């Protein structure tokens, strides 16, 4: 594992946090920690309790690491802790197990313009609320509204901003916002008993331990809960007060509420780095965009990649307590692996027959793991410990020199023939990869999504394992439609092995066309493990296609795709005759 340790430009061992540098720094920037509600300098400490408790110089903000341009902070630093020439450091560590705890991003409500977040100063998010009510915040905990720095008397909270809203592509519940708002109303009631608080909600989800009690306390403290999400927010340009229009669904009435300030209870979204980490560790996502666990009930902290575990929000929205619980579970799972000190690799790895190998090196070129060593003029060799078992090499080898253990050519061909033995014209033949498409089929099953009974699935570890011969054999056996399906293009469980799938299917399309077989009879689909719905939909589409394939077409494909006699077989036969 290579880790980039970013340059801090301030040596944390030397820095004694005296603050002299901050006093002389001429740069003023919005303070990220305070949600931009106050400012910081280019050299700063992120927050008073930061760990490490040391200043940091933001080089993007700094006037220049050239002392001629500024250099004021270095001048006043008695400890000489500031080093403008500090550089990022690459640290290499061998790692046995990984816990992914990359958290969340907070939903940005800009797109939900009906609430006026970008137009009205007194509309804030719940994260900004946190900073405004905090003693360590920009107002030292004196709660004021942004437009006039006065203490508001009437505050509204709107729930589910960016949550449970399919219209904006966020259908899931963010889990924490109801309780966070309840907590906020209790804080306000405690600090300012005369303040009027009103919460607009669709459902209050207070199902955790002692949560319902908090909800009741909030109501007893005078907070009004109105069932209905506002459709419109308007501002009075003179008073800067806000009028919220809402259908009170309990009373069945349209209501207008005049408020001094409005807090948008924003949801949470998957962190933007998720895709990057996902690619590095070959992880998958569920439909809400968070990481997918190995099994929703039985392996809730295991990633599909062995030795990788999830903790916290990045797996699904959860509160602090659940994050801590999952972190404990993840460390326990990880610790068990580290304690064992060894791991058994499933015996699904490739082996090369040296005598059959023609030393072409094609297999080494397609291996996503660099697990095949090949030098010009020498037979290729598999490093078993590095082989992950996708089988791309086996499907690529033109000479049958590679045996993909437990998913051999013979085994898969036998499955094709057995499946299509009787009445092949009635069947849609599918190859599905273990990690995504086959699992997508499982998801369709778990979710009881009906689809036509005509499909027949053969499982391979990766779609790249499916060779041209296997697909052609399916057509020779009389399959009207053949599907090759795998993980989404950028989400392949085997890094990028499914690029080989694409190449192979494209070759096959050309071959089919040349042979006078409609290329559409071979389909390629990417179906993720979470996409049960898509799996079912694809099966419906394929069944429709199957019904359009005539018996003549099937018969033509059988004949046109017959294997040509191999040269090697010919030679062998000739040799046999000669002897």
């Amino acid at each position: 594992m290579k880790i980039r340790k970013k340059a801090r430009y301030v040596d944390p061992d030397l820095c004694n946090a005296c603050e002299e540098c901050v006093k002389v720094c001429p740069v003023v920037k919005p303070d990220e920690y305070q949600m931009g509600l106050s400012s910081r300098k280019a050299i700063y400490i992120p927050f008073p309790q930061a760990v490490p408790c040391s200043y940091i110089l933001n080089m993007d903000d700094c006037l220049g690491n050239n002392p001629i341009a500024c250099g004021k902070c270095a001048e006043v630093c008695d400890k000489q802790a500031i080093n403008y020439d500090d550089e990022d450091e690459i640290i290499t560590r061998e790692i046995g197990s990984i816990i992914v705890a990359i958290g969340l991003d907070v939903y940005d409500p800009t797109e939900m313009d009906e609430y006026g977040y970008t137009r009205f100063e007194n509309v804030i998010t719940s994260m900004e609320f946190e900073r405004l009510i905090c003693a360590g915040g920009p107002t030292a905990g004196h709660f004021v509204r942004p437009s006039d720095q006065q203490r508001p008397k009437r505050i509204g909270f709107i729930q589910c901003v960016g949550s449970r809203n399919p219209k904006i592509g966020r259908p899931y519940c963010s889990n924490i916002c109801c309780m966070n708002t309840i907590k906020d109303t209790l804080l306000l009631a405690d600090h300012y008993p005369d303040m009027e608080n009103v919460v607009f909600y669709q459902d209050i989800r207070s199902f955790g331990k002692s949560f319902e009690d908090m909800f009741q306390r909030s109501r007893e403290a005078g907070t009004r809960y109105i069932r209905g999400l506002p459709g419109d927010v308007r501002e009075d340009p003179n008073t800067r007060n806000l009028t919220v229009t809402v259908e009170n669904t309990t009373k069945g009435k349209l209501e207008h509420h005049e408020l001094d300030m409005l807090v948008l209870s924003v949801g949470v979204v998957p962190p933007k780095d998720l895709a990057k980490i996902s690619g590095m560790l070959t992880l998958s996502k569920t439909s809400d965009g968070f990481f997918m666990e190995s099994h929703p009930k039985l392996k809730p902290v295991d990633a599909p990649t062995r030795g990788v575990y999830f903790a916290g929000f990045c797996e699904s929205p959860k509160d602090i307590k659940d994050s801590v619980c999952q972190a404990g579970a993840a460390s326990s799972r990880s610790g068990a692996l580290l304690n064992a000190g060894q791991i058994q690799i499933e015996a699904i790895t490739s082996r090369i027959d040296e005598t059959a190998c023609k030393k072409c090196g094609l297999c080494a070129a397609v291996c996503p793991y660099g697990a095949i060593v090949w030098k010009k003029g020498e037979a290729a060799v598999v490093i078993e410990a590095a082989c992950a078992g996708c089988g791309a090499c086996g499907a690529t080898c033109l000479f049958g020199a590679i045996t993909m253990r437990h998913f051999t050519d013979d085994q898969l061909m036998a499955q094709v023939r057995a499946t299509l033995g009787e009445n092949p014209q009635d069947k849609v033949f599918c190859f599905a990869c273990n990690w995504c498409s086959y699992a997508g089929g499982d998801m369709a099953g778990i979710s009881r999504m009906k689809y036509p009974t005509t499909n027949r699935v053969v499982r391979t570890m990766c779609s790249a394992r499916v060779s041209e011969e296997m697909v052609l054999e399916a057509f020779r056996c009389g399959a009207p439609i053949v599907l090759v399906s795998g993980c989404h293009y950028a989400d392949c469980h085997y890094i990028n092995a499914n690029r080989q799938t694409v190449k192979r299917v494209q070759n096959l399309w050309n071959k089919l066309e040349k042979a006078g077989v409609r290329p559409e009879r071979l389909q390629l689909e990417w179906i993720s493990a979470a996409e049960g719905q898509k799996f079912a939909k694809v099966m419906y589409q394929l069944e429709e296609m199957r019904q359009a394939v005539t018996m003549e077409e099937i018969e033509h494909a059988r004949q046109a795709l017959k294997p040509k006699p191999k040269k090697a077989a010919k030679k062998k036969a000739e040799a046999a005759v000669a002897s």
Partner: protein
Amino acid sequence: MVANPTNDKIRVGVFVCDCGLNIAGAVDCAAVAEYAETLPDVMCVVRNKYTCADPGQNEIKNAIHQHQLTRVVVASCTPRQHEPTFRQCVREAGLNPYLLEMANLREHCSWVHPGEWDGATAKAKDLVASAVARARLLQPQEELTVPVTKRALVIGGGVAGIEAAIELGDAGHQVVLVEKQPSIGGIMAQLDKTFPTMDCSI
């Protein structure tokens, strides 16, 4: 290829699971079992109510001994759920775990074809035929054991990452915690009070 003492005699046992009514409610399991008997090299077919339960597993073990089975096909649920269970089961009966194959009659058949008795049964038969065809060609395999470096990496220094790192450290493991921001603490550090205890976040 590992030498296989059973190579010369392929004797397949097929175990058709009702899974209560999960499978038997949508698939004619009796017909599937009957069909399985006609497949090449199938020496015995057993129907179980719950193959994964101890009695079901015991039936597999007994049949392996009684019929000298060298290949086992379990026609039940997805291999993504119970393949480890049945691999362990055949291992305990003295077979190499890689001589097991599963046919997915539940997630890929009965659960998605309710009320389609004939279609689902025909499909289940094909799934079993495919599994038997594959099982006949399975070979015993030996798994490679590789050492695990005794060091963990925790990506992310929020409350979950910090907690995981501390626990692993307390258990005596080396931990590398990486955080992209200048300080650990994550979003929780930006909160004022937290529910349900109403105490400070940091």
